[in-house]
């Protein structure tokens, strides 16, 4: 029945999330996240979590002359949230604070290069939320 087919197509279209999002690139960043750990010296740190699924990211930033001199993070969560944060951390190195603040969800998704539905979007954007809030907050710094 043609009706059934079009509904199926719509279901597949709306869903936007087949195995594609778990392709090599994402899996690699999930299994071997870049810049993982805690910086010895940092000027900013901030933690965010997604209460619905338990994804958690803590970011450490060393900012010198308005640039991200070093960045690291500790993440606990799903493949998308960890991989996104890992990709973001690579991109953020040596970028100016201003450039980071210009990042928005659209640019973040572009950076990831995968299509995401509404549900997983939050996972992908957790890293972005964390770094932006880290830059906003007047928070603790640590200097050994």
């Amino acid at each position, binding site marked *: 029945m043609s009706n059934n087919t079009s509904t199926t197509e719509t279901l597949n279209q709306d869903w936007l*999330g087949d*195995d594609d*999002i778990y392709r090599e690139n994402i899996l690699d960043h999930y299994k071997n996240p870049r810049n993982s750990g805690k910086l010895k010296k940092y000027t900013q740190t901030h933690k965010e979590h997604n209460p619905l*699924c*338990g994804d958690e990211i803590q970011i450490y930033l060393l900012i010198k002359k308005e640039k991200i001199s070093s960045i690291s993070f500790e993440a*606990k*969560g*799903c*493949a998308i949230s960890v991989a996104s944060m890992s990709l973001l951390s690579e991109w953020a190195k040596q970028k100016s604070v201003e450039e980071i603040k210009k990042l928005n969800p659209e640019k973040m998704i572009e950076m990831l290069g995968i299509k995401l539905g509404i549900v*997983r979007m939050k996972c992908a954007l957790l890293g972005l939320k964390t770094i932006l809030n880290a830059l906003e907050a007047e928070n603790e710094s640590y200097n050994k």
Partner: protein
Amino acid sequence: MNLKKDFPMLNKTIYLDNAASSLTPTPVVKATEEYYKLYRANVHRGLYKEAEKATKEYELAREKVARFINASPEEITFTSGTTASINLLAYSLSKALKEGDEILLSQLEHHSNLVPWQQLAKEKKLILKFIKVKDFQLDMEDFKNALSEKTKIISIAYVSNVLGTIAPVEQIAIEAKKYNPIIVVDAAQAVGHIPIDIKKLNCDFLCFSGHKMLGPTGIGIMYGKKEKLEKISPFLYGGSMIKSVSFSKTEFADLPYKFEAGTPNISGAIGLAAAIDYLTAIGIKNITHTETELTSYALKKLSALHNVELYGLTNAPEQRTSVISFNIKNIHSHDIAHILAGQNIAIRAGHMCAMPLVQEVLKQQAVCRISFSFYNTHRDIDYLITALKKIQNKLK
């Protein structure tokens, strides 16, 4: 009964999220369609033919629900669902409570049977206690210790939506008799899976939803013992729940209308009746048997996988239903659910609207959950297991 014809979604999806909501068979959809097309009218008001028919079908639905749980029709109130029913009770029962009174829940509760009481306790300075979970069951020793003359309300999930554990409600009622608290049962996960007999349970109130038992969404039931319902005040006020209204005062309607303000979910009630017909034709005992069998098979297959952690009783099939929560170590439940979805296998991942149970008792951030209905098959489970193995290879 032809499963593929009655449940078209089964042709495309391996649906394993029945604890969230069941599928709705074609006869139920047809029953609601008939209302909308052929006798679309409000109930209890009009004098014309369609109004008569609508009223008759609505009240017939009430009678069917009553028979389904061994109660009388005047003890059955239609609501929008379990959550609404429990909120109604929390509100209406609160009038008789004072500071220091205790409400006893369990650690297994779904948010809908936790948050209303929690907020009530905050507002009226009541004490909220939780029966502990031990080995995935209610710790009856802990229950006996928590019970006292201060306990005014006990509200328990008949079946846990995370662990599938069946609570010993009858035993709880017997044990509590000496203090005579109000006993409320959240039967959302029990209906359509195990038989419900309110006389056997001897509870004062029992709530459930239509959409978890093949019915439409937006309809649910609050059952209450007649003498208890007569004592408590309504929650919602307005049309339909009155006998007479003047500018200065109102006389409320008799049971069960006292708690049904406004135009009810007429099509929902009619659909629910059709769902009861469908389930009764198969026989609840047969359904329980089929699901128990599927559960044993699934537990066997799941526990044979590497790195799987199962939550719930694995050796007591009579004490649990077909709700199975699990985790695969080092793989996030959301990733699992997402990849399975790509293969048209529908499972649930997260905290199941039971954050305290999952996060504080099971100590997990999130879990995966599969839950069966009688239309699931061994093949569904085989597909799931194959898919899980592939995921383990991919994400390890």
